[in-house]
């Protein structure tokens, strides 16, 4: 210590202040400020842990919110629109109006920006309009039985940072049959290269499929149009038709709740009945991806049907989900082009916004128009446009995270293309219509699995080792051994992970049998070498500090380990018939992965041992000396004292050591990231890999857009980790605080 530190230097006032009560104001002020700053530092610790908690909760919170829907625009129109489209920025609405015109109106001013007369209503009436779900055309069916497809082209341009949307209503192309009329229902789709597919019911009770393709010759610039037609039988009372994005399957519903499917490529095949819905179908749509059908019923019911893997070749659909029904019949359904969401409008003009994967009702409310005739979702899925008898309304939908619910995060979900509800984590996929699968359950199981196998190794080694060091070892030896074990804690986990993944894993695969042999051999070797040690002359033993046998055991164990490795091949041949992995696969039926739970258990166990060791050693050696001395004085031997006095007294400390070790293993990232295959499977087998919550965050968060669903789900994973470790650590600390108080009383 510095000599001058104890006397206030160079301050004449300091000497005068000795014994005096008053302290100069400046010094008193400094004292008070320091007290405040120091207190703030203490509170700052609590504040930072709370800040972490609050911040993470705040990031997770919006995940569970529903959709916010507000009226964006409302226009009066006359005559009413039969079908409508909006642009991605919701500034223009294009509609099929009752007077046979297609009109584009600005949603801001309500003025008509473009129009085209398609049907002369004095010649034949407009029967129905149809809007392309992808926003590329509008179609009109007239009373004479022909259908006009009117292409709609949107142009987005930027002028001085201002976005300008222009719309162009193109030349209609007409579809008709020479000896037949096209009637309701009908459906059409186009592709980006301009080919059109149209399917319609005919007056003679057939289905007609038109395919028009346009081929542009790259050299001459000529376009060649070709049309093919095919026909197939239609069931009686056909009511609705939908066609998937690839124009491969045509679905139709008929009276009595029957759903049929036609193969539409290359030409129409006869219909197959694929589902029998309980009730009358009043509306039908396909979800994004074209596999799942949403069915609206006369009773107000809403159902999702899709083919399951078990039902081969799309031959039949299964009822997968039921949504809470509307009070009156569903009249219109439309699906989002962005995700698996859809909108339903019922006969009483109530609108509902739903999401298939998460089975969520996101919003329900009034349509803002009377007698809804058509409904469409905006291309970005952030608006709903509806036309009523006198007006068109556009609702703005703020719906950031429809795809997850608490239920879908933890419970099995029946995803499209799966044969049963499952727990799946698969956040990204190759295609636009991919259905993200955010089930945290396999990750939770992976976390517990890794923790279990590592604690299986760490608890016995850590606690028993600590007991030995604190109770049976000479202090001189203890002062060397204890820091050595604790130094293990300083090893960076990335190094452990690297060794586990690249060095240990391939070697364990080779010598797994030796590892099994060691489990049996080690206790035997310990007992044998213990007995031999005991037979050594007392004179020799006394020369070494108490507890040296641990060092002797280290040598014998190392030799035994080497022996086991040498015997690996022979043992493997004798017990497992040559190869453990083959034996495991053929006899037990388990797959052996190179990077598996045992490798992780060993590496993570290694990381957890020093933690458990240090805290339990503390608990053991803080047991009051008086208790130990008393026990020994009463004639108990060393082991009796340890097992009956020390262990019970220190047991809360051991418990808290295990809790802290558990917390460490739960949150460990690098080791599991490097030493497992990171496959999110749900399986307890020690011979395959897993993915933990923590590794999942490390793998996925660099790819997660800020404030997206994946981002928030990963924050939820972090919150879970936080909550688990917070609970464990708080419990451990409380136990330790009580233990300390108890030791102080003893």
């Amino acid at each position: 210590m510095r000599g001058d530190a104890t006397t206030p230097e160079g301050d004449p006032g300091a000497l005068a202040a000795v014994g005096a009560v008053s302290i100069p104001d400046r010094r008193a002020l400094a004292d008070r400020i320091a007290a405040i700053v120091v207190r703030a530092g203490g509170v700052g610790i609590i504040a930072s842990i709370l800040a972490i908690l609050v911040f993470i909760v705040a990031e997770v919170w919006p995940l569970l919110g529903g959709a916010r829907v507000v009226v964006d625009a409302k226009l009066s129109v006359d005559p009413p629109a039969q079908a409508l489209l909006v642009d991605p920025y919701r500034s223009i609405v294009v509609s099929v109006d009752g007077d046979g015109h297609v009109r584009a109106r600005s949603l801001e001013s309500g003025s008509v920006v473009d129009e085209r007369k398609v049907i002369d209503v004095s010649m034949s009436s407009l029967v129905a309009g149809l809007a392309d779900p992808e926003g590329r055309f509008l179609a009109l069916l007239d009373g004479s039985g022909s259908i006009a497809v009117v292409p709609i082209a949107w142009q987005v341009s930027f002028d001085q940072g201002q976005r300008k949307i222009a719309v162009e209503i193109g030349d209609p192309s007409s579809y008709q049959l020479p000896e037949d009329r096209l009637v309701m229902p009908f459906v059409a789709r186009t592709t980006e290269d301009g080919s059109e597919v149209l399917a319609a019911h005919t007056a003679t009770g057939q289905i007609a499929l038109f395919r028009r393709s346009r081929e542009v010759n790259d050299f001459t610039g000529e376009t060649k149009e070709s049309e093919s037609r095919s026909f197939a039988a239609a069931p009686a009372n056909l009511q609705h038709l939908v066609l998937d994005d690839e124009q491969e399957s045509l679905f139709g519903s008929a009276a009595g709740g029957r759903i049929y499917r036609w193969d539409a490529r290359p030409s129409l095949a006869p219909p197959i009945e694929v589902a029998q819905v309980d009730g009358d179908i009043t509306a039908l749509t396909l979800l994004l991806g074209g596999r799942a059908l949403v069915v609206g019923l006369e009773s107000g019911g809403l159902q999702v049907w899709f083919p399951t893997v078990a039902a081969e070749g799309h031959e039949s659909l299964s009822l997968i989900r039921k949504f809470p029904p509307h009070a009156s019949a569903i009249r219109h359904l439309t699906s989002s082009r962005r995700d698996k969401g859809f909108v339903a409008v019922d006969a009483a003009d109530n609108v509902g916004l739903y999401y298939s994967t998460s089975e969520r009702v996101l919003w329900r409310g009034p349509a803002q128009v009377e007698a809804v005739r058509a409904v469409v979702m905006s291309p970005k899925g952030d608006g709903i446009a509806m036309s009523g008898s006198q007006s068109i309304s556009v609702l703005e939908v703020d719906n950031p995270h429809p795809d997850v619910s608490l239920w879908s995060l933890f419970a099995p979900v029946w995803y499209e293309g799966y044969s049963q509800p499952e727990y799946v984590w698969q956040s990204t996929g190759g295609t636009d219509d991919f259905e993200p699968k955010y089930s945290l359950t396999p990750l939770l199981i992976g976390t517990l699995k890794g923790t279990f196998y590592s604690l299986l190794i760490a608890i016995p080694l850590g606690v028993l080792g600590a007991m030995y060091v604190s109770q049976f070892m000479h202090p001189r030896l203890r002062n060397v051994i204890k820091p050595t074990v604790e130094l293990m804690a300083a090893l960076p986990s990335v190094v452990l992970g690297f060794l586990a993944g690249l060095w240990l894993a391939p070697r364990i695969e080779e010598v797994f049998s030796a590892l099994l042999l060691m489990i049996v051999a080690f206790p035997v070797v310990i007992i044998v070498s213990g007995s031999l040690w005991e037979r050594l002359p007392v004179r020799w033993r006394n020369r070494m500090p108490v507890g040296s046998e641990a060092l002797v055991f280290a040598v014998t164990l190392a030799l035994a380990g080497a022996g086991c490795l040498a015997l690996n091949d022979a043992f493997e041949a004798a017990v497992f018939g040559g190869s453990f992995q083959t034996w495991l696969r053929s006899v037990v039926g388990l797959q052996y992965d190179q990077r598996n739970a045992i490798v992780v258990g060993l590496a993570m166990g290694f990381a957890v041992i020093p933690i458990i060791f240090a805290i339990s050693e503390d608990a053991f050696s803080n047991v009051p000396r008086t208790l130990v001395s008393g026990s020994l004085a009463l004639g108990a031997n060393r082991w009796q004292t340890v097992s009956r006095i020390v262990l019970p007294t220190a047991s809360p400390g051991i418990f808290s050591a295990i809790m802290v070790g558990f917390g460490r293993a739960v949150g460990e990232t690098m080791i599991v990231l490097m030493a497992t295959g990171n496959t999110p499977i749900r399986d307890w087998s020690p011979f395959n890999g897993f993915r933990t919550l923590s590794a999942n965050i490390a793998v996925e968060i660099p790819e997660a857009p800020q404030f997206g669903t994946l981002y928030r789900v990963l924050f939820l994973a972090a919150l879970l980790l936080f909550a688990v470790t917070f609970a464990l650590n708080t419990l451990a600390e409380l136990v330790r605080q009580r233990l300390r108080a108890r030791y102080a009383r003893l």
Partner: protein
Amino acid sequence: MTMLGMTSRRRSTERLGQVFTWMCAGALALNLLLAVGLLILIGMHGLAYFWQASVTEIELKDGTRLIGEVHGIEAVPTADAAWEGEQRMRLKIGNRDLYGLDFRWLRESEIETVTTPDEVVLLERLEWGNFYGRMVELRQAGSPVAAGSEAVLAALPDLHQRQMALRESIESLEHGEMGEVNYELEKLRLEERAVRMRGDDARASADLARMERTQAQLDERYRELAAELTAMRDRLHDVVLVMRDAGGQTKEIAVGEIVRVVQPNSMGTLASVRLYLGRIVEFVSGAPRESNTEGGIFPAIFGTVMMVFLMSFAVVPFGVLAALYLREYAKDGPMVRAVRIAVNNLAGVPSIVFGVFGLGFFVYLIGGTIDQLFYAEALPTPTFGTGGILWASLTLALLTVPVVIVAAEEGLAAVPRVVREGSLALGATKFETIWRVVLPAASPGILTGMILAMARAAGEVAPLMIVGMVKLAPSLPVDGYFPYVHLERKFMHLGFHIYDVGFQSPNVEASQPLVFATALLLVGVVIGMNFVAIVVRNRVRRSYATSAV
């Protein structure tokens, strides 16, 4: 029993107790074995990386000749019954530009002869990894300078040195003047955007005109430099070494692309040791090559050290304040218990959670706000709104604050009561006592905490993967451009280097030895720091053990 010296009849429980004791001893022995074994493993593999083994030439029974280094011999996997009981050899054949593969497995029965010819050379190259073969000819500007192994070897060092000097001047031009021009151009671009964002008035158009002139000057300068560089690069590829591989294939290698020429089989012990040390120096001070799988790790060392020091600026004051609160100011009660629980939780919450917090809070919230306010002209390219060394340091500071608190508390507790009371009795205020007496006395404890926190931070990877590390940082966070220290830059880190090279590199097999060397360095630094901390702590304890009496 031994400890109490009582014997005679042994009851069975006693026997059992003895066995349990042995089991405890066995558990401890296993712990020690694991700890020591692991260190030996890393040490051996890490140090072996720099050692040049002899290079063997192998002739196979089918007539193929190969040159390479033997990397281990093992039994052929038993699954393959045809080769039951045979040994196989893993040969590093290098010459990636010719063969595509770095390694080849050779079965014992395939091999005809194994020799170690003296004249075989190993070329360490900037690209494509090692080349093993024989020297044929040295050419300058297309005409031969020397032919035959010995003549080439004699003529090579001078030319090699000249070409290396040329390469260095190219690099200094690229990073020096060229870099400066690029930097000025980028600055100009941002300035221009800022002026445009301000709106147009007379001053703005004057500014823009001025900028256009500067831009033209800079562009001109850039073209000059680029031409100069091209000329220098041509000269670099002027001197060529013609090599022949084991199979007789010849390959021209620009001398400027060669890092080192070694004749491993004719090297004396002294030369071997010098090579060994030279490689260590290169490893520690050199830049990485071939997407980090070769060359040095200097940027990673630099990034780690800088991040750790930045972190300690934040963590030490915070940790010491909290420790002072717990030890000197607070009275035992619910508040202290709450703080202790918070400290324990900060220590126990998984590091990845800190990373997630750092990303959301520091990077996106604070960094994003800073960008909006001060770097609006660079948007949408984020400046502070992306991972960087500052955010990484702050995140780690939060993570390591419990380490400092615990050590500082211990340091404070070790200061004897009498010292405090003496100071107070002399009329010092509590603050003066703490500032002038207690803290200086507790400083070794605080130092211990700081070292331990730095060691912890040096080894932590998971949170940094999220808030600022990159595989290959284009520039260090410190350079010659104002403001010299760039806290927003991404950086390289030793721990991440291990993960990245070990698991994400295109050639995991070939880069494994380098990862071992990096791991050895990291483990050495971390353990060394812990060791220093232990020594400091023990010394303090001892000094108080005597002074307190």
